């Protein structure tokens, strides 16, 4: 099937087998391997990308479902004003092996937008807007992105710094 994807503000026309996932379109057909395949089942979050501004698991979407959509991957983050988040991940050591990192970064950006729009989470004290970006909110909302190296303290500190969290979350959290 012929489709067009707008990826990191560049248009790509592709002729794809309808079975190709959005993730495999990026990795196998466009050489954009920054987006990772950890489980291919929507269980780990390593493939998280932003589609029309919202975070999704690219492994759970067929590429042909996204004809004409605007997609941002880790390769395009620097141009979208997220370089401060990338720098914060480095400064707080928010990764070790780095394989989940592209997904963590895209997920964090999508998550912060959800908070800005007033979406509540399981740990929000009320369903009314607007949730406050606390450590617990970050941890809850980022729990779809597994990190087996377990850099959650660094990830949360980086997101907290970038997102302007209500309470300080440092990667060396005082007990």
């Amino acid at each position, binding site marked *: 099937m012929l489709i067009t994807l707008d990826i990191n503000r560049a248009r790509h026309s592709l002729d794809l087998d309808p079975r190709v996932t959005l993730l*495999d379109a990026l990795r196998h057909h466009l050489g954009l391997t920054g987006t*990772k395949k950890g489980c291919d089942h929507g*269980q780990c979050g390593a493939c998280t990308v932003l589609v029309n501004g919202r975070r999704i698991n690219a492994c759970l979407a067929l590429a042909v479902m996204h004809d004409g959509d605007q997609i941002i991957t880790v390769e395009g983050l620097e141009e979208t004003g997220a370089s401060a988040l990338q720098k914060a991940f480095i400064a707080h050591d928010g*990764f*070790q092996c780095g394989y989940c*990192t592209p997904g963590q970064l895209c997920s964090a950006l999508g998550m912060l937008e959800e908070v800005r729009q007033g979406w509540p989470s399981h740990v929000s004290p009320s369903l009314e807007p607007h949730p406050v970006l606390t450590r617990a909110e970050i941890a809850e909302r980022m729990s779809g992105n597994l990190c087996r190296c377990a850099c959650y303290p660094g990830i949360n500190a980086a997101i907290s710094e970038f997102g302007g969290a209500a309470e300080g979350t440092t990667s060396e959290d005082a*007990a």
Partner: protein
Amino acid sequence: MTITLTTDGPAEDRMPEMKQGLVGVATPRPDGPLKVTGRAVYAAEDLPEDCAFGVLVRAPAPGTITLANADELAAFDGVLSVLQDPAMIRRTAQGGAGKAPRQGPGTADFAGQAIALIVAESFEAARHAARTARVIVTGDPGLIDPAAANPEGEPKAQGDLDSAMREAEHTVDVTYRTPSMASAAMEPHAAVAWWQGENVTVRSSLQMLKDNRAELADCLGIPQDRVRLLAPFVGGGFGSKLGIAPEAVAAALAARRLGRPVCVVQERRQVFELVNRRSESHQRIRLAADAGGRLLGLGHEALVSNLPGEDHIEPVTQASRFAYAAPHRVVGERVARVSLPTAGSVRAPGEAIGVTAFECAMDELASATGIDPITLRLRNIPDRHPQNGKPFSSHRLEQALTEGAERFGWAGRNPAPRQRREGEWWIGTGVAAAFRVNTLTEAEARITLTSEGALVETDMTDIGTGTYAILTQIAGEALGLPVDLVTVRLGDTDLPPGSGSGGSFGAATTGNAVWLAALDLRQQLASRLGCEEGDLSLQDGEARVANMRRPLVALLNEGSLTGHGHIRGGEALKQVRQATYGAHFAEVAVSDVTGEVRVRRMLGSFAAGRILNPLTARSQCHGGMTWGIGMALTEGMVLDRRDGHVVNRDLAEYHVPVNADVPPLTVHFVDERDPWAGPLMVKGIGELAICGAGAAVLNAIHHACGVRVREWPATPDRVLVGLA
């Protein structure tokens, strides 16, 4: 030139002479910018032109295998090959094997084994054919249940433990059961293979390239010098990538047959079966103590399992041999031979589950004696190795416990359980000691010094451990160069053989090889300056001798210099017991209604020699502590009792800790230099932090609500039974 050192005794600490101020300083990873922009290249990436895709086919049960519809699959649209090559491997190689594991996919040793590879023009076509494969299994599957086996091995006895148990004031005799556990690294095992004439290059996700090269060459029946392995970035290992795995061998075979590159990635559900699991264990622990809590006898006997012919016997009692003093002892493992997925090394094999169970039993002894759990441990620290009388190279358990206790706020704790309640939640705290053996293997490294800076090269890997960072720091420190003038190249068997990443020996072994290569360069620089190496001071790209200052660039105008370092472990590993020590503290909340456990905070206090980089070392400790939370509360592979297949073989059903499961973590490093650990005096940190971490959580559960959970993980149902 090469500086070669065998660690035969205590080393001299030359770090204070160095002036650049990099070692011991929190330094961000030089590979960070690549990792946060998606430019770091992992195994199944940067595919060569015309690359075909392969998907492995699994055996549904152990036995003799027939692929009934191979011809039909071969005719599928896009399918290039249905590969059932006798050289394909049945098992993933054990760490350090250096030779092929069992080959021949006509037999499945366990359910889930790879028995064929479908190669197609596209991943989708290969996957479709693999899913359509009809695999028929016949014959005897062999024994599945470890409890039904007649186990091999006999624990080692000293003195008379039975008498000690009869005569002691206080005794504990308990059995802990731990399930099989998965490494579950985020990057699935993957390989891309391409041939140029008789030479094959494979980019794969591997920890120990030197050994993996030998293993792959043996599998393919070709000399090692025709195999080149690349692993510049590895998406987590935790032991699972120590040995060559089925997808790499299959990719190389298929690429040879088809004459074009082939990429094979294990599907996540295959990773759970094909990658070596941590063996389940059945641990009987006996403790006999006098009224003051001093151990008279100690028993730690473990039953583990593995396939016939595998030499990995999960060394559950490895630390119990030296952790605590007691004259009467029975310590060791037995192994049941079963047709289950291969057991092998998973982060801190042995101590991860062995120390954790033993430290739970120590907490039971603390309860039985009414002695504070920290005091009880301090009273039982041995002066020398309790089994063989050898001295310890350095022993900081006391400091780890007391410094950790002070930072956690342990003093004044009421030892009685069920004392603190907040709404439906019982609140409690727990402590456990951490022990892990330390070793040093063999590594070589090369540093080329030019007017552009230093290039450090070794086939060592960085599996997230921070190798790029620490080797940059070590070379920069010794050569007086800032980090941006040092480049580290790793993960290529064309480079000098490093130690590989495993057993927490990577930083010490390869780090010392880089250190020696830098000392070699210092000698060459001194010779160009006409001075003694010891009089040479290098800082900020400048050489200083007495009152003379020369830019390194000027010295290198005569030509670049190359330094070689080669280190290997020697008598220092035999004459003393080298180990790392630590202490874990946890506070948990246990729901009286559901039995759910939430960890509220954890603190780890670790002594691992010189800490090269507090930033990356701390992250490794966070990892180990978090694995402890998983071990205590959520992680366990469920193996089917009929055919041994892994029932929960994905990340939805095998529960690794997620962000919300992990509370604020605090890491404290105890000041230590261990001269027996080599010139850098650094010991392994990556595994220490998992050893005993889960015990702090489990002991805190008991303190909170009075329930001892001796079959892990402590899921709500198992806690609730005790609460009722």
